[in-house]
């Protein structure tokens, strides 16, 4: 272990915050699904991978700008999430929690390895010239795609927040997540809420995939890296807590990136897992309370 200098530290803080926005977006989908359905969606990472590949292929075949492909990845993933919920998850809503987790694990295994079959395990990267740029602020380099991803992540989060606060559907979703029986009593169609919520969760992570693709590699197993991080973020922010997910995302982004300045290579992932276990053990209700379960 060596002590990094101040510039490196500042750099990793900036990187961490930028990355944290994306983690937040991944985690918001996960926490929405959990809050409403009480289901831990293990397939979240594979949905993100699909979002990344949507962007990748649209760019490679049609030359579509990666950020324009948000217009495709969000609806595609929304529909896919809806279908997964409608035909698979809806069947096990009353099953024990570990069986639900096993089902989503099965879904993720299937999606990831089907993608492996279609697209081979090769690591691919998006070569977008205008995104190579980076802005210098003092000694700190801010990479353009990360900054764009961060801004989009914040915008999407705010949009989603408004949707949940303002629209009838959003209100129904929040009602279902806070008080299932009460929601039923006032005539909310829970089945519909469930698949819409799952669809929105999938759309969020699809968007996160699109935003990540320009500065990360794309391959069928890439989701695994993000899904565990997202679990940590969700648990840290409090299961089902929306704002907590965003704050948690930035905390984990920071921990990972500052940690990486101190420890070498793969150990940065190691830190994430370690934090995960610690949080599960000692603070399972998350940093911001709201213990409902």
């Amino acid at each position, binding site marked *: 272990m060596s002590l990094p200098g101040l510039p490196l530290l500042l750099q990793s803080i900036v990187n961490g915050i930028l990355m944290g926005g994306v983690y937040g977006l991944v985690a918001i989908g996960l926490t929405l699904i959990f809050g409403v359905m009480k289901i831990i969606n293990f397939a979240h990472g594979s949905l993100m991978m699909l979002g990344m590949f949507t962007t990748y292929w649209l760019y490679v075949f049609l030359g579509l700008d990666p950020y324009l492909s948000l217009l495709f990845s969000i609806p595609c993933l929304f529909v896919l999430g809806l279908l997964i919920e409608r035909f698979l998850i809806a069947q096990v809503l009353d099953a024990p929690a570990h069986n639900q987790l096993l089902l989503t694990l099965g879904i993720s295994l299937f999606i990831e390895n089907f993608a492996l079959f279609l697209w081979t395990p090769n690591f691919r990267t998006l070569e977008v010239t205008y995104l190579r740029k980076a802005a210098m602020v003092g000694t700190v380099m801010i990479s353009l795609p990360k900054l764009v991803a961060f801004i989009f992540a914040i915008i999407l989060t705010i949009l989603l927040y408004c949707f949940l606060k303002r629209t009838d559907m959003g209100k129904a979703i929040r009602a279902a997540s806070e008080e299932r029986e009460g929601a039923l009593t006032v005539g909310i169609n829970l089945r519909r809420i469930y698949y819409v919520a799952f669809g929105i969760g999938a759309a969020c992570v699809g968007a996160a995939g699109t935003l990540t693709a320009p500065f990360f590699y794309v391959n069928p197993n890439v989701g695994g890296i993000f899904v565990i991080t997202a679990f940590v973020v969700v648990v840290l922010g409090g299961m089902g807590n929306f704002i907590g997910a965003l704050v948690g995302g930035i905390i984990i982004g920071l921990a990972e990136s500052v940690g990486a300045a101190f420890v070498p290579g793969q150990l940065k992932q190691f830190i994430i897992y370690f934090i995960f276990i610690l949080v*599960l053990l000692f603070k399972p209700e998350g940093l911001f309370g709201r213990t409902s379960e």
Partner: protein
Amino acid sequence: MNSTAGRTRNILVIIITGVILLILPFFMGGYYVHLVTMIFFFGYLGVAWNILGGYAGQFSFGHAAFFGVGAFTSTLLQVHLGVNPWIGLFLAGIAGLILGLCIGSLSFRYGLRGPYFALAMLALAEMFRLMAVEWMTVRYPLGITIPLKGDSLWYFQFRSKVPYYYIMLFMMAAALYLTHVIEGKKIGSYFKAIRENESAAEALGINAFKYKLLAMAMSSFLTAVGGTFYAQYYLHIDEESAFGVAISIEALLGPILGGAGTVLGPVLGAGIIEGLSETTRNLLGGYSGVHLMVYGTILIFVIIFLPGGILGGLQTAFRKLSRGG
């Protein structure tokens, strides 16, 4: 049913099955001996997982941690200190057991349940995998190979697959016998009580912490020993084959399919899974993720259509029949 007659029949079935399995290698080619050994091997891992997951109801998604610790313990002892693999096998089991007790006492003390326990175990296995990656990239970039010592029972390595077949058959039979004993004794009922309703079990005076830890101890010991077998079978290990997610999934898939919390379920499940993934592998050829895709499909179907597994489903069906008749 007359219980003595029933018992005699059971003993007969066991003896006949045993004899068939003992003479089977004489009638099979090397490929099939390997295939059946793998069925025994995954059956064995499933039986080990089943003690904790099936009986005591603590679903672990990270049994690869124990498996890998077992494989690495015996292999490193053997390569660096020349420790005999049979002693290594025992020490591997102890290492797995210690790890199991550590993580078990932590997670059970702090009340980690259901999916949270499953995910914590997954994170544990991944932590070990990453440590192994970090440690091996410099020292053993191609994995660790166990030096060849010839065809010898003493060194636990054989040119033919047949001795491995018998060793694994014995290990699986022993693990099955252990589960059978557990099921018949009070401890089995305690495990099931904890699985069905932990608070109720505690209210009845069962020390849930103690019994969950006991289940964890047995499960982790057996799994780690399985790791040593794997290392000796291939005489080569790397971080992915020892700590990879695939092992964690393979350990739980057999019991889930065959019937978690039944004695024979894991072996039945392992047989079906190996058969299926071998067939698809032959059909789709050299594409590497095919068995995982099959696992995913199996998981989806079993959880939706057969949540108790095959034997669990049969049990419910029989109960319904006998109640109706």
